[in-house]
């Protein structure tokens, strides 16, 4: 299970990386915004994407839309971990096809719960 963590704050990337390691996901890579993440994703090999929303150059929502628009990536599970708390934004992310939405500040339990839920659903779909 290879996971890409996208956030412009390196501190948050480290926190998420640490939490994922505690959950047993050791194979993670990092990108600091959508425009660096997208080429990495297109190179292939990632099974899961964790992304922030508010980032320079290419924001998380644009990255999500680009992923869904790419035939190779369109079924990649995407978990948004962001401080963006407007209802309109959450609805927009949902419509763009996000698999989970976590609002910062969050807890380790929330992260585990959402990731479990995403995989449960993927497994259920076969």
């Amino acid at each position, binding site marked *: 299970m290879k996971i890409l963590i996208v956030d412009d704050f390196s501190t948050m990337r480290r926190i998420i990386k640490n939490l994922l390691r505690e959950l047993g996901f050791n194979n993670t890579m990092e990108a600091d915004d959508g425009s660096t993440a997208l080429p990495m994703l297109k190179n292939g090999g990632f099974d899961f994407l964790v992304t922030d929303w508010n980032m320079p150059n290419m924001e998380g929502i644009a990255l999500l839309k680009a992923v869904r628009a790419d035939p190779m990536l369109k079924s990649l599970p995407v978990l948004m971990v962001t401080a963006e708390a407007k209802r309109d*934004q959450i609805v927009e992310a949902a419509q763009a096809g996000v698999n989970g939405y976590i609002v910062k500040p*969050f807890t380790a339990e929330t992260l585990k719960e959402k990731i479990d839920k995403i995989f449960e659903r993927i497994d259920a779909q076969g």
Partner: protein
Amino acid sequence: MDNDEARMAAQLDLARQLVQQLEDGNSAGVDEVIRQLRLPYERELFDELGKLTRDLHEALNSFRGDSRLVELTRDEIPDAKERLNYVVSMTEQATHRTLNALDESMPIAESLHTRSLQLAEQWGRFRSRELSVDEFRELAREMDDFLAVSAQETEHLRSTMSEILMAQDYQDLTGQIIRRVIRLVQEVEENLVGLIRLSSARMEPVKAGKPAVAEELEAPDTKGHGPIVPNTQDVVADVVSGQDDVDALLSSLGF
């Protein structure tokens, strides 16, 4: 050129008249010639004054019309103060959270350290066959106890460490808030520069444009805003209050 020549010729003519009138001792005539000599300069002065008045009028009008500056001073600057205060209290909380976890961890680490040193010493005496049977029984009991406790205590340490890990999220959250304030300061600066340009338009007549309006803060909702800060315009927007709210909203959308 022709204009200048005509003007020079007229001035020369007036100068000759002036000399003539002076030689004649006709003071009324002298005054009249001097008045005629001054006339073009006075017209220039009036023209300049007229232009200045018009510029001032325009500057005042465009200052009044620039509602962004008003908005900035009325809403955004007090908001920025509130945002920075929030950053101070968030960093304070994060530091206390970290220090509390450390306060909890240090005695645990110290006690594990001391007990393991004691046990190592006893174990060393056992290996050199210096322990009596009773002392060995005591050592075995202590060893049992220590193993049970250390499993428990290291688990406790693991949880305080993950508390410390999570407390570091303040850097991202406050960073986003500070960046937003930086954008605001930039916008205020641009507006002030615009104002200065307006008022100095006479000296630098290239353009006395309207103060620049930064687009970023008025961007559509799809743009990231950063964390919601209490007691600011943020709370006026329709926002969720936490993860439970997010989950409820998503489940209402069929998630």
